């Protein structure tokens, strides 16, 4: 198929940036979206132009780096997948596709479609862990039985890949779904309960400091999340946060 691409080009963090049109032809429906971008970039290089910069690594929905806002949706038109898992069969011959970076104050653009999501890292530094040393001598994992239901729910929360689609989809650029998932994973497990109060307070404080917006319950994040992280996690975080502050 032949396509017109409207892509956000921005030389660097200080550049203003603008949309630029490109044409690609003979795109196979079996290509992934990023393979289509590879084809475009090969074409640009052969014309002596600069290729479009975009983040990507695992190309199988694991690392969460392929942050593209495609036709107005984080990770494009398909559901339950990341951009790297999106395939060209979702588009048809003659389509025009707009491709922008994930936009949020806390995700400044580095170049073209590459954004800096280190704000997510800093939220995790604030409490996304259990305080245990890593040189062995921990107790037997079976000494603390964990109900299958709690383990399964913690597992579902743990599938969050930190991609930031929830932030990009939210009209307030809120990071509540991401932080909710991280808080929940630990809050649901007995080993994580011990620090639950400090964790939720510190992570929420860092989230606010980074300039993420508030949650007004629109639910766009849940729809666009490639890992199906549910709004239930935001509710759980809010409960944790309230009870943590009552305990003060």
């Amino acid at each position, binding site marked *: 198929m032949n396509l017109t691409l409207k892509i956000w080009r921005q030389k660097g963090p200080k550049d203003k940036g603008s949309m630029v049109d490109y044409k690609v032809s003979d795109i196979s429906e079996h290509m992934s979206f990023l393979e289509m971008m590879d084809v475009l970039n090969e074409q640009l290089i052969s014309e002596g132009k600069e290729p479009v910069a975009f983040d*990507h690594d695992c190309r199988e929905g694991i690392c969460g780096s392929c942050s593209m806002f495609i036709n107005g949706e984080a990770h494009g038109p398909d559901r339950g997948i990341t951009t790297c898992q999106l395939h060209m069969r979702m588009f048809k011959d003659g389509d025009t596709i707009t491709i922008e970076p994930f936009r949020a104050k806390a995700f400044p653009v580095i170049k073209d479609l590459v954004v800096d999501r280190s704000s997510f890292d800093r939220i995790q530094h604030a409490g996304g862990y259990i305080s*245990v040393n890593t040189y*062995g001598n921990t107790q037997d994992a079976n000494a603390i*039985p964990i109900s299958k239901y709690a383990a399964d729910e913690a597992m579902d929360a743990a599938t969050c890949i930190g991609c930031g689609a929830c932030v990009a989809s939210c009209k307030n650029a809120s990071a509540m779904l991401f932080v909710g998932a991280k808080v929940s994973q630990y809050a649901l497990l007995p080993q994580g309960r011990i620090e639950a109060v400090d964790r939720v307070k510190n992570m929420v404080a860092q989230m606010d400091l980074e300039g993420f917006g508030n949650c007004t319950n629109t639910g766009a994040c849940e729809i666009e999340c490639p890992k199906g992280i549910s709004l239930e996690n935001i509710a759980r975080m809010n409960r944790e946060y309230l009870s943590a502050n009552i305990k003060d």
Partner: protein
Amino acid sequence: MSANIIDQCVAQGVPFARDYGGLLDNRSFGGVLVSRTFYAKGQTGQQLLLGAYSAMNRQIARGKITPFNRHEMLDIVKVDGKARGIIARDLVTGKLERHSAHAVVIASGGYGNVYFLSTNAMGSNATAAWKIHKKGAFFANPCYTQIHPTCIPRSGDYQSKLTLMSESLRNDGRIWVPKNIEDVKAIREGHKKPTDLSEDERDYYLERRYPAFGNLVPRDVASRAAKERCDAGYGVNATGEAVYLDFASAITRYGKEQAKIHGIQNPTDAKIYELGKGIVEAKYGNLFQMYEKIVDENPYETPMMIYPAVHYTMGGIWVDYNLMTTIPGCYAIGEANFSDHGANRLGASALMQGLADGYFVLPYTIGDYLSHEIRTGKIPTDTPEFEEAEKSVKDRIDFFINNKGSHSVDYYHKRLGNIMWNKCGMSRNAEGLKEAAAEIKALREDFYKNVSVPGSADELNSELEKAGRVADFLELGELFAKDALVREESCGGHFREESVEEDGEQKGEAKRNDAEFAFVSAWEFKGEPSDAVLHKEQLEFNEIELKQRSYK
């Protein structure tokens, strides 16, 4: 050791699956017949990684670790023979940085991307390992590669990487190709569907060749068997490189079991299918969904197609029992080193090794080394050693930017990948390996003449990053071929066509030669890959007896 690691990870909050009694649940995995693998949905590896990442976050919060995101190590700096720092490039600004230290640890992963197509992430590369090799670290067993049997087949020339389908699928999936070549043709041309073929018309070749282990034979055996069938013309997709992984019998088996559990008398076929599908969905739902997104076929209704792909490299930087390389003060851990797996690797053991290296070995051994450095003080970076290392890094970057050639970096990477896959892949022979070494050398020369890197050195420039990595792969690839040529036996993932069993029950299977080849090949850099000098480290086995594997 592995039980310790599970305890450690659980303490860190990794959500391993639990059974109804609240204890850790387990299941079986490739290469073994008993259920002994703990798991976290279909993404155990990813969850262990996130667990390690969380432990790192804690140390960052405490100020014990300073992270440098978007930085690439481009050379090691030695002072008086000891590792004393690195040169790194800030990938956002392009600025070169000098970092000094009392010891350097390389944890840069494997080099599977020397094949261009692999299951490894796009950013995986050998540069850090190759740079230390060029400064004195021996590189061990470069030819030992694991080719994983359950990956989604290639669909075209534009393919950028290959996707692994979790090995756990082999617990319930049966692998087959059509028995008759006419059926293969009909399927490729779309006149027949795999589900049209009766049981008699299918060749469950793993069950046929290995009755004891069947579909659970180790990865290298399953991969070679798929290649054997496809080379013989039985591949079931347009490229001729795919076999079926079929869940129909598992669905029926689970369906009947469920019907019994729920007391359903004389269940209909539809009911059995519905109940069985539910179980398969609960176990592998996310993998099936992923497959459907990529291939656009529903694996509940038609068998999956799979083909082997490069997945892991057992070879790597040579280290001693303390994980130190042959450069004093320089350590290598995880997939970057050669330790633990030998010529083969069983399922789930890569992370076991990586976590053990990082959690349980290095913290103790590096302390011993550092204890002799207590009086060393801070190491200055304004010395000739740092100066020189930075200059050579800068010269190489400037070379790429100024080269103005006619081909992209990927053009060369794909060509290298082709040579590697065809001549240093699942099966190797002396003639092919000699050709591969010569072809890679020629390709490298062409690369330096004609590669084109757009953009500048002082900005985010992924083509520039790739150029440096491919340049190193073009050297490593040649050493790889040279190593494979020296190892004239078949062992583990390394299969030499000249070394197979001639007769008996094992006819055609890999033949080891322990009398002559029970050694590690540790290569010392001498300028060109072809000049590398081989050091043999003899392997001694006290507790176990070396013998031919049998999965019959």
